[in-house]
């Protein structure tokens, strides 16, 4: 059977599974809709958290980023995973003890202020929509590449599936579909990785294969070979970093604090039965994530070797079949600048703008003709970073079912994250805005109806973003993490560990943290992109890392303002005492 037929079957089967879970896990109360009734086993929750957090970008793009940037790219791995330590040690157990439904709810109650709650809701909605736009687009892209349907059709199919299980099943439906999605995506990621590791080193464990010797008899290790190849062609040496230390530190810190402040990840820890389960569950979540994240560097290294070996100085007419296939989807482009019919792969952009603009015509060797202006670089190739994962099964000459598996895995990664984000948006709107702020008297049934309606509206908006992606999707990811770091994380942590931080301090801190971070990112990405370089950055910190400064400002302002204004009321201080003690968190599913 062809890879495409198999892809349809695999993706179709996985969808049937998700919808089946949705029907089985229909919910009838807000408690089930928001936190799955609070009775999720810590291992199950760990697995769901892993799927929730690993997005289409994790599955498709991170290996590519690492493959092209080598050691510099690793700061993303450290940052994203390190955030779970902060989450487990500083947030998860206390928020579980608090025992409510949403992140703005904690901020609103702890700072006894509707304003704080509303500011938190706005931050949450902004962060979540930023993130979700990319996910819906991701679903569409996967569909178009593997199943050859229109991107927009793919987005609509994705919306329909998420609609089924998020609107019907709420957090409960999402939890169990995420478990299924984790299994699909980890299997889909590991199989090609293991085969590639065997192909290059005979070692079946990719993590060890990366440090092993090549099996070609040269006596070189994988890393030595990579360094040799990259240096010869004039790229940065693979195992040597080039980013400044201060920027590396700032980016790692911003991603860590940002990860710990992502609302859709935090709420997953509201679903376990006990406080100690929240800690344990964070450990399992990170362990499940690390199965994939420690494999990513190996995939990156092997695919970089593969790419260089099968592309550089190879005549186009003799190139492997996958080059033409991915050229047809627009992820690879070649312009024979020196007219020798051979592909030269070198540092620098081959043309301007960077992404190829294809014409209908075919060139001398059958390659697709592009209409971009050429640069003076000797490089003739455009290679999209996503190809590193998507083309792996073909590069490693694996059977068609593995290609189908990767398609199903990528869709699973995108859908699981989209669903988690939709849920925090709908619960914040229904619970924090309607129930807790504007219409405190509505019944549980009515609130549940609002939550479902909000989910529907959120899906439609997310789909709209997926079909009409804002031109700046790539840059806005920096927003999501920067905003989570600068706005949500500091007030939550200070709210738990200090009894002195009060309403005025928290609100002032959030507003300063948020506005300074936003201003910095907007300035360098949109107002003055031409000076977006280390010389002009504040202390040499890039917009990706500026969330760290935003968080520090948030804390400083919150402390100073709180010192100048009265301490929180006695009930709030009692509440803080209460969330610090694990005993008595309650088993929520007993209602």
């Amino acid at each position, binding site marked *: 059977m062809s890879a495409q037929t198999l892809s349809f079957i695999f993706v179709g089967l996985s969808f049937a599974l998700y919808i089946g879970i949705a029907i089985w896990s229909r919910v009838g109360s807000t*408690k089930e809709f928001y936190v799955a009734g609070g009775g999720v086993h810590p291992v199950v929750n760990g697995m769901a958290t892993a799927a929730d957090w690993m997005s289409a970008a994790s599955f498709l793009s991170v290996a590519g980023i690492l493959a092209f940037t080598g050691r510099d790219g690793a700061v993303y791995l450290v940052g994203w995973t390190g955030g779970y330590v902060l989450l487990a040690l500083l947030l998860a157990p206390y928020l579980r003890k608090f025992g*409510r439904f949403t992140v703005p709810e904690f901020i609103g109650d702890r700072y006894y*202020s509707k304003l704080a709650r509303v500011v938190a809701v706005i931050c949450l909605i902004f962060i979540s929509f930023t993130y979700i736009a990319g996910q819906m687009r991701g679903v569409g892209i996967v569909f178009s590449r593997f199943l050859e349907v229109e991107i927009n059709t793919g987005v609509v199919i994705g919306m329909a599936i998420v609609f089924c299980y998020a609107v019907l099943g709420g957090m409960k439906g999402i939890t169990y579909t995420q478990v299924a999605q984790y299994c699909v995506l980890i299997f889909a990621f590991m199989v090609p990785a293991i085969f590639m590791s065997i192909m290059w080193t005979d070692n079946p464990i990719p993590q060890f294969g990366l440090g092993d010797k090549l099996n070609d008899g040269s006596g070189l290790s994988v890393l030595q070979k990579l360094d040799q190849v990259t240096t010869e062609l004039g790229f940065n040496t693979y195992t040597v970093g080039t980013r400044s230390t201060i920027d590396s530190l700032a980016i790692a810190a911003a991603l860590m604090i940002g990860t710990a402040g992502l609302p859709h990840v935090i709420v997953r820890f509201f679903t376990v039965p006990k406080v100690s389960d929240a800690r344990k569950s964070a450990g399992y979540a990170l362990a499940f994530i690390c199965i994939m994240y420690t494999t990513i560097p190996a995939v990156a290294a092997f695919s970089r070797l593969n790419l260089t070996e099968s592309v550089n100085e190879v005549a186009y007419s003799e190139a492997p079949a996958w080059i033409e296939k991915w050229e047809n989807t627009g992820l690879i482009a070649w312009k024979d600048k020196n007219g020798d019919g051979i592909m030269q792969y070198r540092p620098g952009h081959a043309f301007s703008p960077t992404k190829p603009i294809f014409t209908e015509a075919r060139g001398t060797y059958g390659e697709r003709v592009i209409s971009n202006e050429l640069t003076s670089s000797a490089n003739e190739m455009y290679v999209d970073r996503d190809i590193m994962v998507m083309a792996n099964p073909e590069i490693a000459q694996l059977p068609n079912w593995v290609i189908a598996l990767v398609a199903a895995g990528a869709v699973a990664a995108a859908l699981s994250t989209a669903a988690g984000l939709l849920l925090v948006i709908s619960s914040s709107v229904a619970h924090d805005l309607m129930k807790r702020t504007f219409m405190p008297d509505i019944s549980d049934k009515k609130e549940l109806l609002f939550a479902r309606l909000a989910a529907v509206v959120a899906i439609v908006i997310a789909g709209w973003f997926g079909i009409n992606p804002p031109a700046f999707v790539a840059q806005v990811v920096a927003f999501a993490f920067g905003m989570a770091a600068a706005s949500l994380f500091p007030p939550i942590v200070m709210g738990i560990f200090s009894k002195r931080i009060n309403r005025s301090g928290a609100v002032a801190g959030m507003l300063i943290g948020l506005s300074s971070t936003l201003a910095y990112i907007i300035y360098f990405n949109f107002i003055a992109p031409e000076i977006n370089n280390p010389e002009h950055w504040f202390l040499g910190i890039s917009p990706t890392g500026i969330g760290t400064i935003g968080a520090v400002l948030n804390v400083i302002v919150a402390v100073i303002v709180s010192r100048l204004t009265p301490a929180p009321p006695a009930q709030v201080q009692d509440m803080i005492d*209460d969330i610090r003690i694990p005993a008595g968190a309650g088993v929520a599913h007993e209602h």
Partner: protein
Amino acid sequence: MHQSADSKNKPENDGEIYHHDEAENLPPHSHHDEETLSEIDVQAYWRANIKVLVVLLSTWAFVSFGCGVLFSDWLDQFHIGGFPLGFWFTQQGTMLCFVAIIFIYHIWMKKIERAHGVDDDDDSVENNAANKTSTEAQS
């Protein structure tokens, strides 16, 4: 002292801004806190908790910012399983340490909580009962 579910439902001075009006959503904490926990135990527990956090977060910072960034290059002179050590930390090592830190935290805290009598081991039994009582009271 800890709030009981009842005191949370009373109107508060600040009531206009600080709502506690969803009786059915209140975490059923807990009569048993007040019966079994002394203030001294609670304070000792919190100090022990802070100590654990300081130790583990220092390790976390040392591994991620230290081994992962600051002296990563210096560590490259050593080798582990074919990797330069600093490079290994950036690609795999830090992540493995993070997982270890969280599980150590879990086990360590469990021990401290049992010692101070604030653990949640018996929560399922205790609160099923508490929950039932509060549901009955409402209806």
